[in-house]
């Protein structure tokens, strides 16, 4: 059975033209490749246009295909809960370009932690995110971005070095900075984190 693409694709193409690079249907799911510059507009349009109403952000993730021409694909999975209907929007980031995509935190507040996870695991910068810092690994984790294909399974450092760095970490640095700012352990934070907290920056990417 060859499934037809979602009817949203035609309206998307009419609305955005060249910004919709291509679309594919995979296992019945419609995947739309958008340009990086317009992906925020595409997602906002899909969310807010009557008749589309993709109001629910299911997931944000990224895929490393080990492809020499595209470093990563960032994936937004969205859902129109009332119909219901699903749509997958992707942005392919070519090799050599900065791993930057716009945040959708202003559309879905739930994107906050999802984008932090993608940043933590793949190193994708979400421009405009209010608090872009690691969420699964600790803040001073120095080995890189674990879910990239170039990352060795057991990490870059030796086990003793990993253990040393882990033990050197303060358990308190796993808490959010708001919690820490009212706690005694504030002084135990790394100096650069303290400085950022003082400036109210909290990892904001300009």
């Amino acid at each position: 059975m060859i499934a037809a693409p979602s009817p949203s694709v035609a309206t998307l193409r009419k609305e955005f033209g060249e910004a919709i690079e291509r679309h594919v249907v995979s296992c019945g799911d419609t995947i739309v490749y958008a340009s990086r510059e317009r992906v925020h507009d595409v997602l906002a349009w899909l969310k807010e246009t009557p008749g589309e109403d993709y109001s629910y952000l299911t997931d944000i993730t990224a895929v490393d295909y080990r492809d020499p021409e595209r470093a990563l694909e960032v994936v937004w999975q969205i859902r129109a809960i009332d119909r219901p209907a699903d749509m997958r929007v992707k942005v392919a980031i070519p090799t050599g370009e900065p791993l930057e995509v716009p945040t959708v935190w202003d559309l879905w507040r739930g994107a906050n932690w999802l984008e932090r996870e993608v940043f933590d695991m793949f190193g994708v910068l979400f421009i405009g995110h209010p608090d872009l810092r690691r969420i699964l690994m600790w803040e001073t984790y120095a080995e890189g971005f674990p879910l990239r294909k170039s990352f060795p399974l057991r990490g870059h450092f030796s086990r003793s070095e990993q253990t040393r760095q882990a033990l050197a970490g303060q358990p308190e640095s796993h808490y959010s900075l708001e919690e820490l700012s009212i706690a005694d352990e504030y002084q135990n934070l790394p100096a650069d984190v303290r400085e950022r907290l003082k400036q109210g920056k909290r990892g904001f990417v300009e």
Partner: protein
Amino acid sequence: MGLSEIEPGAAGSPVVSAVSPNFMTTSLDFLANWARTGSLWPMPFGTACCAIEFMATAASRYDISRFGMERMSFSPRQADVLICAGRLPFKLAPVIRRVWDQMPQPKWSISMGACASSGGIFDNYAMVQGIDTIIPVDVYVPGCPPRPEGLLYGVMLLMKKIRGESFTDDFLRREQTIGANGLYLPPDRIDELSEPFGNSVSQTRST
């Protein structure tokens, strides 16, 4: 601690730093070890599915309090046995180390399950390859997860170990603190302990 500071050597003779076991010390050992084995207060450090088996062990069917572990101590300062039930990610390594440091002597630890003992199936960047690279371990309980009987057997092995302790030899009761290099074991020892084994040997460090 204790009698080891006493210098039994007669005046003029070379000072012997440790008391050799005699009727007095072994009787005291027997009494102290009997008391300690009968009132081990566990500090549960449950991180994964082993904690479910640990809860089953603590619940009425297996009833760990039959062995004197009546009171789960959720404060490390009133605990005797740290039971690490489950895998330990590097992110939790400083936490278990601090819990261990907060426990007063005498203290023991049980590493419950394959992941706590060796990293188990998680031979990856995020997981401690055996909690013995972080804290000293007395008893390893194998299994994935171990059945409650397995944990109880580990507890009884620990009791057997405690019964053999003597305060004329305080080696086991010495605090093993983190040294200047940030580890409590030599780095090459940790690398050796963390070597892949079994199936994960064929998983290469892909780049």
